[in-house]
Protein backbone atom coordinates (compact mmCIF):
# COMPACT_ATOMS: atom_id res chain seq x y z
CA UNK A 1 0.00 0.00 0.00
CA UNK A 2 2.92 2.28 0.77
CA UNK A 3 4.28 1.83 -2.74
CA UNK A 4 1.07 2.66 -4.63
CA UNK A 5 2.28 5.99 -5.92
CA UNK A 6 5.48 4.58 -7.34
CA UNK A 7 3.69 1.55 -8.76
CA UNK A 8 0.99 3.75 -10.31
CA UNK A 9 3.64 5.86 -12.06
CA UNK A 10 5.51 2.80 -13.30
CA UNK A 11 2.35 1.22 -14.66
CA UNK A 12 1.27 4.53 -16.24
CA UNK A 13 4.60 4.81 -18.03
CA UNK A 14 4.21 1.28 -19.39
CA UNK A 15 0.64 2.04 -20.53
CA UNK A 16 1.67 5.25 -22.25
CA UNK A 17 4.54 3.44 -23.99
CA UNK A 18 2.20 0.76 -25.28
CA UNK A 19 -0.47 3.22 -26.42
CA UNK A 20 2.02 5.42 -28.24
CA UNK A 21 3.73 2.46 -29.88
CA UNK A 22 2.49 0.58 -32.95
CA UNK A 23 -1.20 0.87 -33.74
CA UNK A 24 -3.11 -1.22 -31.23
CA UNK A 25 -6.63 -2.68 -31.42
CA UNK A 26 -9.36 -0.42 -30.10
CA UNK A 27 -10.36 -2.93 -27.38
CA UNK A 28 -6.79 -2.88 -26.09
CA UNK A 29 -6.62 0.91 -26.23
CA UNK A 30 -9.84 1.16 -24.26
CA UNK A 31 -8.65 -1.28 -21.60
CA UNK A 32 -5.31 0.49 -21.28
CA UNK A 33 -6.92 3.88 -21.10
CA UNK A 34 -9.32 2.81 -18.38
CA UNK A 35 -6.51 1.31 -16.38
CA UNK A 36 -4.38 4.38 -16.98
CA UNK A 37 -7.14 6.68 -15.74
CA UNK A 38 -7.45 4.74 -12.49
CA UNK A 39 -3.69 4.99 -11.86
CA UNK A 40 -3.71 8.66 -12.77
CA UNK A 41 -6.54 9.26 -10.33
CA UNK A 42 -4.75 7.36 -7.55
CA UNK A 43 -1.53 9.30 -8.15
CA UNK A 44 -3.38 12.63 -8.24
CA UNK A 45 -5.18 11.84 -5.01
CA UNK A 46 -1.85 11.03 -3.39
CA UNK A 47 -0.54 14.46 -4.38
CA UNK A 48 -3.73 16.09 -3.18
CA UNK A 49 -3.38 14.99 0.43
CA UNK A 50 -3.39 17.59 3.17
CA UNK A 51 -0.08 19.13 4.21
CA UNK A 52 1.63 17.22 6.98
CA UNK A 53 2.65 18.64 10.33
CA UNK A 54 5.84 17.78 12.22
CA UNK A 55 5.02 15.30 14.96
CA UNK A 56 6.68 13.62 17.89
CA UNK A 57 6.29 10.00 18.91
CA UNK A 58 4.97 9.77 22.46
CA UNK A 59 4.07 6.87 24.67
CA UNK A 60 0.64 6.97 26.28
CA UNK A 61 -0.03 5.68 29.80
CA UNK A 62 -1.14 2.32 28.41
CA UNK A 63 2.16 1.98 26.53
CA UNK A 64 0.65 2.66 23.11
CA UNK A 65 2.90 4.76 20.87
CA UNK A 66 1.28 7.68 19.13
CA UNK A 67 2.46 10.51 16.87
CA UNK A 68 1.23 13.85 18.20
CA UNK A 69 1.87 17.39 16.97
CA UNK A 70 5.23 18.77 17.97
CA UNK A 71 4.65 22.02 19.83
CA UNK A 72 6.43 25.10 18.45
Amino acid at each position, binding site marked *: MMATFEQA*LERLEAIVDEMNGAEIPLERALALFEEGISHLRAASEELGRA*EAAVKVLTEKADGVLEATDLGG
Partner: protein
Amino acid sequence: MMAPERLPEPELQAAPGESPAAAISVATLTRTVKDVLEGAFPPLWVRGEVSDFKQHRNGHWYFSLRDEEASLRCVVWSRDTRRIPAPPDEGMTVVALGQVSLYAARGDLQFTVKTMDAVGDGLWRKAFELTRARLERDGLLDPARKRALPFFPRRIAVITSADGAALHDIIAVTRRRNRLVELVLIPAAVQGEGAPASLCAALDRLASWGGADLAIIGRGGGSREDLWAFNDEQLARKVASCPIPIISAVGHEVDISICDLVADWRAPTPSVAAEHAVPVLADLQRTVASLGRQLQSGAADAIRGGRRRLEQAARQGGQGARRLVERRRLQLGRLSGQLHALSPLATMARGYVVATSPAGRVVTSVAAIAPGDPLQLRLRDGAAETRVETVRRIEDPTDGQG
Protein backbone atom coordinates in the same frame (compact mmCIF):
# COMPACT_ATOMS: atom_id res chain seq x y z
CA MET B 1 75.96 21.31 91.98
CA MET B 2 73.02 22.76 90.15
CA ALA B 3 69.60 21.48 90.61
CA PRO B 4 69.05 18.39 88.39
CA GLU B 5 65.38 19.18 87.72
CA ARG B 6 66.13 21.62 84.84
CA LEU B 7 67.38 18.78 82.60
CA PRO B 8 64.62 17.55 80.28
CA GLU B 9 64.13 13.86 79.43
CA PRO B 10 64.51 13.89 75.61
CA GLU B 11 63.58 10.18 75.12
CA LEU B 12 60.12 10.74 76.51
CA GLN B 13 59.31 13.46 73.90
CA ALA B 14 60.86 11.59 70.89
CA ALA B 15 59.02 12.13 67.55
CA PRO B 16 57.43 8.96 66.05
CA GLY B 17 60.15 6.81 64.54
CA GLU B 18 63.00 8.77 66.13
CA SER B 19 64.05 5.96 68.39
CA PRO B 20 63.51 2.25 68.64
CA ALA B 21 61.02 2.89 71.40
CA ALA B 22 59.06 5.29 69.14
CA ALA B 23 59.02 2.94 66.10
CA ILE B 24 55.92 3.34 63.94
CA SER B 25 53.96 0.66 62.14
CA VAL B 26 54.32 -0.06 58.43
CA ALA B 27 50.70 0.94 57.93
CA THR B 28 51.28 4.32 59.57
CA LEU B 29 54.30 5.02 57.40
CA THR B 30 52.71 3.98 54.11
CA ARG B 31 49.54 5.91 54.94
CA THR B 32 51.63 8.98 55.66
CA VAL B 33 53.67 8.59 52.45
CA LYS B 34 50.43 8.15 50.49
CA ASP B 35 49.00 11.35 51.99
CA VAL B 36 52.18 13.29 51.30
CA LEU B 37 52.38 12.04 47.69
CA GLU B 38 48.76 12.74 46.94
CA GLY B 39 49.05 16.18 48.51
CA ALA B 40 52.25 17.03 46.66
CA PHE B 41 51.09 16.09 43.15
CA PRO B 42 47.94 17.34 41.47
CA PRO B 43 46.52 15.09 38.73
CA LEU B 44 49.11 14.98 35.95
CA TRP B 45 49.46 13.86 32.34
CA VAL B 46 52.25 11.33 31.98
CA ARG B 47 53.67 10.00 28.72
CA GLY B 48 55.10 6.50 28.36
CA GLU B 49 54.97 3.15 26.66
CA VAL B 50 52.41 0.56 27.76
CA SER B 51 53.71 -2.80 28.96
CA ASP B 52 52.35 -5.82 30.87
CA PHE B 53 48.77 -4.81 30.19
CA LYS B 54 46.25 -7.00 32.07
CA GLN B 55 42.50 -6.72 32.32
CA HIS B 56 41.31 -8.17 35.62
CA ARG B 57 38.09 -10.19 35.91
CA ASN B 58 36.54 -7.38 37.94
CA GLY B 59 37.11 -4.96 35.05
CA HIS B 60 40.11 -3.04 36.35
CA TRP B 61 43.08 -2.57 34.04
CA TYR B 62 46.67 -2.99 35.25
CA PHE B 63 49.78 -2.09 33.27
CA SER B 64 53.10 -0.27 33.47
CA LEU B 65 54.10 2.93 31.78
CA ARG B 66 57.78 2.97 31.01
CA ASP B 67 60.57 4.68 29.13
CA GLU B 68 64.31 3.88 28.84
CA GLU B 69 65.06 4.69 32.45
CA ALA B 70 62.00 4.14 34.58
CA SER B 71 58.78 2.28 35.05
CA LEU B 72 55.51 3.21 36.79
CA ARG B 73 52.76 0.84 37.88
CA CYS B 74 49.34 2.02 36.67
CA VAL B 75 45.76 1.07 37.40
CA VAL B 76 42.48 2.10 35.74
CA TRP B 77 39.42 1.35 37.87
CA SER B 78 36.70 -0.37 35.89
CA ARG B 79 34.26 2.56 36.13
CA ASP B 80 36.91 4.76 34.47
CA THR B 81 37.68 2.29 31.66
CA ARG B 82 34.32 3.21 30.08
CA ARG B 83 35.66 6.66 29.28
CA ILE B 84 38.55 5.17 27.31
CA PRO B 85 37.64 4.05 23.80
CA ALA B 86 39.67 0.82 23.78
CA PRO B 87 42.32 -0.95 25.85
CA PRO B 88 45.81 0.14 24.75
CA ASP B 89 48.05 -2.18 22.79
CA GLU B 90 51.32 -3.50 24.22
CA GLY B 91 54.11 -1.08 23.34
CA MET B 92 51.72 1.74 22.39
CA THR B 93 52.86 5.22 23.40
CA VAL B 94 50.10 6.87 25.38
CA VAL B 95 49.45 9.92 27.51
CA ALA B 96 47.57 9.17 30.72
CA LEU B 97 45.91 11.56 33.15
CA GLY B 98 46.11 10.33 36.72
CA GLN B 99 47.02 10.74 40.36
CA VAL B 100 50.31 9.60 41.87
CA SER B 101 49.64 7.45 44.91
CA LEU B 102 50.91 4.51 46.88
CA TYR B 103 49.56 0.99 46.91
CA ALA B 104 49.93 0.31 50.63
CA ALA B 105 49.56 -3.49 50.52
CA ARG B 106 52.77 -3.75 48.51
CA GLY B 107 54.34 -0.40 49.22
CA ASP B 108 54.41 0.23 45.45
CA LEU B 109 54.27 3.59 43.80
CA GLN B 110 51.03 3.57 41.84
CA PHE B 111 49.56 5.86 39.22
CA THR B 112 45.75 5.83 39.23
CA VAL B 113 44.71 6.66 35.65
CA LYS B 114 41.43 8.47 34.99
CA THR B 115 41.70 8.68 31.23
CA MET B 116 44.23 8.18 28.49
CA ASP B 117 44.74 8.40 24.80
CA ALA B 118 47.25 7.13 22.35
CA VAL B 119 49.54 9.74 20.91
CA GLY B 120 47.58 10.58 17.77
CA ASP B 121 44.11 9.01 17.67
CA GLY B 122 45.29 5.42 18.04
CA LEU B 123 42.80 4.30 20.70
CA TRP B 124 39.76 5.72 18.92
CA ARG B 125 40.84 4.20 15.65
CA LYS B 126 41.49 0.88 17.34
CA ALA B 127 38.05 0.83 19.01
CA PHE B 128 36.42 1.73 15.68
CA GLU B 129 38.28 -1.02 13.84
CA LEU B 130 37.50 -3.63 16.52
CA THR B 131 33.77 -2.87 16.28
CA ARG B 132 33.88 -2.77 12.49
CA ALA B 133 35.61 -6.16 12.39
CA ARG B 134 32.99 -7.76 14.67
CA LEU B 135 30.13 -6.39 12.55
CA GLU B 136 31.87 -7.49 9.38
CA ARG B 137 32.33 -11.00 10.74
CA ASP B 138 28.57 -11.14 11.36
CA GLY B 139 27.87 -10.03 7.78
CA LEU B 140 26.26 -6.73 8.80
CA LEU B 141 28.44 -4.66 6.49
CA ASP B 142 27.56 -6.67 3.38
CA PRO B 143 26.54 -4.24 0.62
CA ALA B 144 23.84 -6.73 -0.43
CA ARG B 145 22.03 -5.99 2.85
CA LYS B 146 21.41 -2.39 1.86
CA ARG B 147 17.76 -1.77 1.03
CA ALA B 148 16.45 0.69 -1.54
CA LEU B 149 14.86 3.80 -0.05
CA PRO B 150 11.18 4.39 -0.84
CA PHE B 151 10.68 6.64 -3.87
CA PHE B 152 8.07 8.80 -2.13
CA PRO B 153 8.03 8.23 1.66
CA ARG B 154 4.78 9.29 3.36
CA ARG B 155 6.10 9.40 6.90
CA ILE B 156 9.74 9.69 7.95
CA ALA B 157 10.80 8.95 11.53
CA VAL B 158 13.68 11.16 12.69
CA ILE B 159 15.75 9.82 15.57
CA THR B 160 17.79 12.67 16.99
CA SER B 161 17.87 15.26 19.76
CA ALA B 162 14.68 17.34 20.10
CA ASP B 163 16.65 20.57 20.26
CA GLY B 164 19.59 19.87 17.95
CA ALA B 165 20.60 21.43 14.64
CA ALA B 166 19.94 18.17 12.81
CA LEU B 167 16.18 18.20 13.47
CA HIS B 168 15.98 21.85 12.49
CA ASP B 169 17.80 21.20 9.19
CA ILE B 170 15.74 18.11 8.33
CA ILE B 171 12.46 19.97 8.96
CA ALA B 172 13.56 22.98 6.88
CA VAL B 173 14.68 20.88 3.90
CA THR B 174 11.60 18.63 3.99
CA ARG B 175 9.15 21.55 4.16
CA ARG B 176 10.89 23.24 1.26
CA ARG B 177 10.79 20.17 -0.94
CA ASN B 178 7.52 18.48 -0.14
CA ARG B 179 4.94 19.55 2.41
CA LEU B 180 3.02 16.28 2.09
CA VAL B 181 5.77 14.29 3.78
CA GLU B 182 5.15 13.88 7.49
CA LEU B 183 8.09 13.97 9.91
CA VAL B 184 7.81 12.18 13.24
CA LEU B 185 10.52 12.92 15.79
CA ILE B 186 11.59 10.10 18.07
CA PRO B 187 13.69 12.04 20.60
CA ALA B 188 16.99 10.60 21.85
CA ALA B 189 20.13 11.79 23.58
CA VAL B 190 22.86 12.03 20.93
CA GLN B 191 25.91 12.58 23.11
CA GLY B 192 27.16 11.67 26.55
CA GLU B 193 27.31 8.37 28.40
CA GLY B 194 23.61 7.51 28.11
CA ALA B 195 23.39 8.31 24.39
CA PRO B 196 23.86 4.80 22.91
CA ALA B 197 21.16 3.37 25.21
CA SER B 198 18.85 6.28 24.44
CA LEU B 199 19.32 5.85 20.67
CA CYS B 200 18.73 2.09 20.97
CA ALA B 201 15.50 2.73 22.92
CA ALA B 202 14.35 5.13 20.19
CA LEU B 203 14.98 2.44 17.54
CA ASP B 204 12.94 -0.02 19.64
CA ARG B 205 10.06 2.46 19.76
CA LEU B 206 10.31 2.97 15.99
CA ALA B 207 10.06 -0.78 15.42
CA SER B 208 7.13 -1.36 17.77
CA TRP B 209 5.27 1.69 16.46
CA GLY B 210 5.56 0.63 12.81
CA GLY B 211 4.06 3.87 11.47
CA ALA B 212 6.93 5.15 9.32
CA ASP B 213 8.20 3.97 5.95
CA LEU B 214 11.69 5.52 6.26
CA ALA B 215 13.91 6.56 9.16
CA ILE B 216 16.77 9.03 9.57
CA ILE B 217 19.10 8.67 12.55
CA GLY B 218 21.80 11.21 13.28
CA ARG B 219 22.96 14.50 14.70
CA GLY B 220 24.81 17.65 13.68
CA GLY B 221 28.55 18.14 13.79
CA GLY B 222 30.63 17.97 16.96
CA SER B 223 33.88 16.78 18.44
CA ARG B 224 35.00 13.15 18.14
CA GLU B 225 33.78 12.55 21.71
CA ASP B 226 30.40 14.14 20.89
CA LEU B 227 29.88 11.83 17.92
CA TRP B 228 31.19 8.73 19.67
CA ALA B 229 27.74 7.33 20.59
CA PHE B 230 27.21 6.57 16.90
CA ASN B 231 30.14 4.14 16.99
CA ASP B 232 28.47 1.98 19.62
CA GLU B 233 28.25 -1.67 18.66
CA GLN B 234 24.82 -2.30 20.20
CA LEU B 235 23.45 0.70 18.35
CA ALA B 236 24.96 -0.56 15.10
CA ARG B 237 23.23 -3.92 15.56
CA LYS B 238 19.90 -2.20 16.23
CA VAL B 239 20.32 -0.07 13.10
CA ALA B 240 21.12 -3.17 11.07
CA SER B 241 17.92 -4.86 12.28
CA CYS B 242 15.71 -1.80 11.70
CA PRO B 243 12.50 -3.06 10.03
CA ILE B 244 12.34 -0.14 7.57
CA PRO B 245 15.06 1.47 5.41
CA ILE B 246 17.20 3.81 7.48
CA ILE B 247 19.55 6.67 6.62
CA SER B 248 22.47 7.53 8.89
CA ALA B 249 23.46 11.20 9.04
CA VAL B 250 26.13 11.83 11.65
CA GLY B 251 28.09 15.05 11.85
CA HIS B 252 29.75 16.46 8.77
CA GLU B 253 31.04 15.06 5.50
CA VAL B 254 34.36 13.90 7.02
CA ASP B 255 32.87 12.07 10.00
CA ILE B 256 32.34 8.39 9.28
CA SER B 257 30.62 6.43 12.03
CA ILE B 258 29.92 2.75 12.59
CA CYS B 259 26.24 3.68 12.33
CA ASP B 260 26.94 4.99 8.79
CA LEU B 261 28.43 1.63 7.80
CA VAL B 262 25.38 -0.46 8.75
CA ALA B 263 22.64 1.93 7.61
CA ASP B 264 20.97 1.51 4.21
CA TRP B 265 22.33 4.87 3.09
CA ARG B 266 24.95 7.18 4.55
CA ALA B 267 24.20 10.89 4.27
CA PRO B 268 27.15 13.28 4.71
CA THR B 269 24.94 15.64 6.77
CA PRO B 270 21.36 15.66 8.15
CA SER B 271 20.32 18.21 5.47
CA VAL B 272 21.52 15.93 2.70
CA ALA B 273 19.61 13.04 4.30
CA ALA B 274 16.38 15.00 3.88
CA GLU B 275 17.34 16.09 0.34
CA HIS B 276 17.90 12.49 -0.63
CA ALA B 277 14.82 11.08 1.12
CA VAL B 278 12.18 13.58 0.04
CA PRO B 279 11.19 14.02 -3.63
CA VAL B 280 10.25 17.57 -4.70
CA LEU B 281 6.45 17.81 -4.82
CA ALA B 282 6.43 20.04 -7.93
CA ASP B 283 8.47 17.40 -9.80
CA LEU B 284 5.97 14.69 -8.87
CA GLN B 285 3.09 16.90 -9.97
CA ARG B 286 4.80 17.59 -13.30
CA THR B 287 5.43 13.88 -13.86
CA VAL B 288 1.80 12.98 -13.18
CA ALA B 289 0.51 15.80 -15.39
CA SER B 290 2.85 14.77 -18.21
CA LEU B 291 1.75 11.12 -17.99
CA GLY B 292 -1.86 12.32 -18.09
CA ARG B 293 -1.18 14.27 -21.28
CA GLN B 294 0.58 11.29 -22.89
CA LEU B 295 -2.31 9.02 -21.96
CA GLN B 296 -4.66 11.53 -23.50
CA SER B 297 -2.75 11.76 -26.76
CA GLY B 298 -2.39 7.97 -26.91
CA ALA B 299 -6.16 7.65 -26.57
CA ALA B 300 -6.75 10.34 -29.18
CA ASP B 301 -4.54 8.42 -31.62
CA ALA B 302 -6.45 5.21 -30.88
CA ILE B 303 -9.75 7.01 -31.54
CA ARG B 304 -8.49 8.36 -34.86
CA GLY B 305 -7.29 4.91 -35.92
CA GLY B 306 -10.52 3.29 -34.76
CA ARG B 307 -12.64 5.84 -36.63
CA ARG B 308 -10.66 5.22 -39.79
CA ARG B 309 -11.17 1.47 -39.55
CA LEU B 310 -14.83 2.00 -38.74
CA GLU B 311 -15.33 4.07 -41.88
CA GLN B 312 -13.56 1.41 -43.93
CA ALA B 313 -15.79 -1.34 -42.53
CA ALA B 314 -18.91 0.78 -43.10
CA ARG B 315 -17.91 1.34 -46.75
CA GLN B 316 -17.46 -2.39 -47.27
CA GLY B 317 -20.98 -3.03 -45.94
CA GLY B 318 -22.28 -6.57 -45.38
CA GLN B 319 -24.05 -8.19 -42.39
CA GLY B 320 -21.05 -9.19 -40.24
CA ALA B 321 -19.54 -5.81 -40.75
CA ARG B 322 -22.69 -4.07 -39.50
CA ARG B 323 -22.42 -5.71 -36.05
CA LEU B 324 -18.72 -4.94 -35.89
CA VAL B 325 -19.37 -1.31 -36.79
CA GLU B 326 -21.96 -1.07 -34.04
CA ARG B 327 -19.58 -2.50 -31.43
CA ARG B 328 -16.76 -0.25 -32.48
CA ARG B 329 -19.01 2.78 -32.35
CA LEU B 330 -19.87 1.99 -28.73
CA GLN B 331 -16.20 1.55 -27.81
CA LEU B 332 -15.27 4.80 -29.47
CA GLY B 333 -18.01 6.61 -27.58
CA ARG B 334 -16.73 5.22 -24.28
CA LEU B 335 -13.14 6.13 -25.02
CA SER B 336 -14.06 9.67 -26.09
CA GLY B 337 -16.11 10.13 -22.92
CA GLN B 338 -13.23 9.00 -20.77
CA LEU B 339 -10.87 11.26 -22.62
CA HIS B 340 -13.10 14.19 -21.83
CA ALA B 341 -13.00 13.31 -18.14
CA LEU B 342 -9.23 13.32 -18.18
CA SER B 343 -8.38 16.99 -18.57
CA PRO B 344 -9.55 18.16 -15.12
CA LEU B 345 -7.57 15.32 -13.58
CA ALA B 346 -4.38 16.46 -15.19
CA THR B 347 -5.07 19.94 -13.88
CA MET B 348 -5.85 18.72 -10.40
CA ALA B 349 -2.56 16.87 -10.29
CA ARG B 350 -0.80 20.22 -10.63
CA GLY B 351 -2.12 21.37 -7.30
CA TYR B 352 -5.93 21.52 -7.21
CA VAL B 353 -6.07 25.30 -7.41
CA VAL B 354 -7.86 27.44 -9.98
CA ALA B 355 -7.45 31.20 -9.62
CA THR B 356 -10.19 33.50 -10.92
CA SER B 357 -10.48 37.28 -11.19
CA PRO B 358 -13.47 39.14 -9.64
CA ALA B 359 -15.04 39.05 -13.12
CA GLY B 360 -14.95 35.25 -12.93
CA ARG B 361 -12.21 34.88 -15.51
CA VAL B 362 -9.68 32.09 -14.95
CA VAL B 363 -6.22 33.58 -14.37
CA THR B 364 -3.51 31.54 -16.11
CA SER B 365 -0.70 34.10 -16.40
CA VAL B 366 1.00 36.56 -14.08
CA ALA B 367 0.52 39.10 -16.89
CA ALA B 368 -3.16 39.29 -15.90
CA ILE B 369 -2.56 40.25 -12.26
CA ALA B 370 -0.81 42.95 -10.24
CA PRO B 371 -0.05 43.37 -6.54
CA GLY B 372 -3.21 44.31 -4.65
CA ASP B 373 -5.59 42.56 -7.09
CA PRO B 374 -8.27 40.40 -5.47
CA LEU B 375 -8.08 36.77 -6.52
CA GLN B 376 -10.45 33.92 -5.79
CA LEU B 377 -8.80 30.52 -5.37
CA ARG B 378 -10.90 27.48 -6.01
CA LEU B 379 -9.54 24.34 -4.41
CA ARG B 380 -10.65 20.76 -4.46
CA ASP B 381 -13.00 21.26 -1.53
CA GLY B 382 -13.79 24.98 -1.38
CA ALA B 383 -12.74 28.50 -2.25
CA ALA B 384 -10.69 31.31 -0.71
CA GLU B 385 -10.78 35.07 -1.28
CA THR B 386 -7.22 36.36 -1.46
CA ARG B 387 -5.22 39.38 -2.53
CA VAL B 388 -2.02 39.37 -4.60
CA GLU B 389 1.08 40.34 -2.61
CA THR B 390 3.82 40.14 -5.22
CA VAL B 391 4.08 38.93 -8.80
CA ARG B 392 7.08 37.04 -10.06
CA ARG B 393 7.54 35.54 -13.51
CA ILE B 394 9.15 32.08 -13.70
CA GLU B 395 10.73 30.90 -16.94
CA ASP B 396 10.14 27.17 -16.96
CA PRO B 397 10.09 25.45 -20.34
CA THR B 398 8.78 22.17 -18.86
CA ASP B 399 5.70 23.87 -17.54
CA GLY B 400 4.59 25.34 -20.86
CA GLN B 401 1.52 23.30 -21.81
CA GLY B 402 -1.81 23.36 -20.14
